[in-house]
């Protein structure tokens, strides 16, 4: 069913997704969106891992994806907790306003 698709296409697809995520991190000011873009990057990695896993006919790639998911969930939980705390204090999540630490 997957015959006829070169791994190259998957590589390309995940790279493009990864880069889109990276651009998002750079181009947006909204902390939550930045965070979401990071999730997008992780998903690009997941896709890549799964495709490689299929390529090698080896389950470990897919298992690795589970760990990435677990970590992503943990990171998001912590991250959003921190974000909402910031929002409580600053009433904004604009990254440009978060510059109290510059001398």
């Amino acid at each position, binding site marked *: 069913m997957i015959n006829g*698709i070169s791994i190259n296409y998957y590589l390309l697809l995940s790279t*493009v997704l990864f880069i889109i995520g990276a651009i998002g991190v*750079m181009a947006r000011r909204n902390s939550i969106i930045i965070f979401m*873009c990071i999730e997008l990057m992780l998903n690009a990695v997941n896709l890549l891992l*799964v495709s490689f896993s299929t390529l090698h006919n080896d389950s470990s790639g897919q298992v690795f994806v589970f760990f990435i998911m677990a970590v992503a969930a943990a990171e998001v939980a912590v991250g*959003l907790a921190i974000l909402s705390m910031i929002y409580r204090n600053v009433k904004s999540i604009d990254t440009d306003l978060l510059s109290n630490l510059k001398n």
Partner: protein
Amino acid sequence: MLGYTITQWIFGILSFLAIMLALMVVFSRNPVNSVLYLVMTFFCIAGHYLLMNAQFLAIVHIVVYAGAIMVLFLFVIMLMNLNEDTEPQRTWLTKIIAGVAGGMLLFVLVGSLKGAEQMQLSSYGASQIGLVKNLGKVLFSEFLFPFEIASILLLAALVGAIMIGKKEIK
């Protein structure tokens, strides 16, 4: 159809959608829309997983990302009541710089990804690795330690999130 197999068509459509939706995530002005686009991107990616016969992963992907993580995002965005009006915008210059930087990175990466053409994905029939049973066997034998230690990770995240989230008791 036009010399492509159904799989290739599906692949193409899913990929196109995924990329378009991912772009929408980045460029949508409304955070809620961004979340929804991202959810849809995840669905496309789940579609790819199905295409590669990673059914279990596909559904777990939906449950974890779309069902839990993105709901949390939506939750926070809604609680903060963010919408287009409150959305801060970077200057065009920054955006262009980000775009150019990203484009260059893409260029470099794509350029360096040459040489993988000859690697074809193995055939569908033989590939049963995505099934729950196989995954479970690998997870609980080879990857037992990471699996166990991931509990520490989740515990830490749990404790951390609660500690940060709860109100300071005076």
